[in-house]
């Protein structure tokens, strides 16, 4: 069944196919507003004198790692770059217009700090044979996203599990 995949897709498996650069530097104001929304009072996000005991300086909430490569909703000089471009590329090539995230796995290696510049790349790890689900017919796939800081150090890695389908 794997042979039924278009060559355009099989050649993507295991290879980096899209890269994103940070449209903004990591900002304390953004992560503190996020912490406010979820009522997270951990001082490593808020209080410099407490944070230095652990992380040398304040750090961003880890849950925000993937968000630092999200593009602006609107930009004066260019079109918006979609997040998870590889996912949208798969949907288009396979003619599966609908897609949902079924599972997220994320590992955190290096704390993210104010002023960091995060970039990422996307790699197709696996794609299943055609499946029939309650939502429709489609395929499951897993995309690995690796995140780097401005020193090219890997700061985290995320595996996103998707179902692409049509009704």
């Amino acid at each position, binding site marked *: 069944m794997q042979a039924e995949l278009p060559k355009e897709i099989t050649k993507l498996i295991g290879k980096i196919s899209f890269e994103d650069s940070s449209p903004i530097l990591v900002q304390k104001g953004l992560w503190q507003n*996020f*912490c406010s*929304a979820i009522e997270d009072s951990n001082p490593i996000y808020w209080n410099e004198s407490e944070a230095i005991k652990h992380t040398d300086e304040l750090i961003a*909430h880890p849950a925000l790692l993937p968000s630092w490569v999200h593009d602006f909703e609107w930009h004066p000089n260019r079109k918006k770059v979609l997040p998870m471009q590889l996912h949208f590329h798969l949907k288009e090539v396979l003619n599966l217009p609908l897609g949902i995230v079924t599972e*997220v*796995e*994320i590992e955190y*290696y290096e704390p993210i700090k104010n002023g960091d510049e995060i970039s990422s790349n996307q790699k197709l790890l696996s794609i299943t044979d055609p499946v029939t689900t309650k939502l429709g017919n489609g395929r499951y796939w897993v995309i690995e996203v690796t995140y780097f800081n401005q020193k090219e150090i890997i700061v985290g890695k995320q595996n996103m599990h998707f179902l692409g389908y049509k009704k």
Partner: protein
Amino acid sequence: MSSKIALPISKFVTSVKNIQAGAIYSRDWAPLHSDQDWAINKGNLPNIIMNNYTLNGLVIKYVTDLYGDATRIGKVSFKIKKPICPNETLEFHGYVISEDKVSDELSFLNINLDIKISDQIVSSAKIIAGVNLTEKKINSPWKIDSKKWKSYIDEVTTDKS
């Protein structure tokens, strides 16, 4: 340690404001997380729904609230089983599945978490967290360099696979 240990239950009440703020401050512009009109009339949803980042933020908060500010999260995996809408009370039910002591001052906890609304599981998560369980807590898990930290995560993850 092999038997699972129940952790204290924590609650979080969702609102239009905190779901919208969670989405906007995580730079997630998808309208199903912030535009009620779009969610209901075009998204065929009961209301706006919480995004992945906000849910992950609450998962991490649950663990760091329990084990202290210096708790360092190594890995989180989660599944969303039902959409989470405003004006719901989320209940966080955590269980320590195992503890791996990798040095005198560092243990990795494997925690399973069910997030419920009215006894229905809407999301489940697995967390690997580094904690210093000694009384003095002199060395923070955050002081471990990223290469060593990653090797610990690989080791603990491999043990559980």
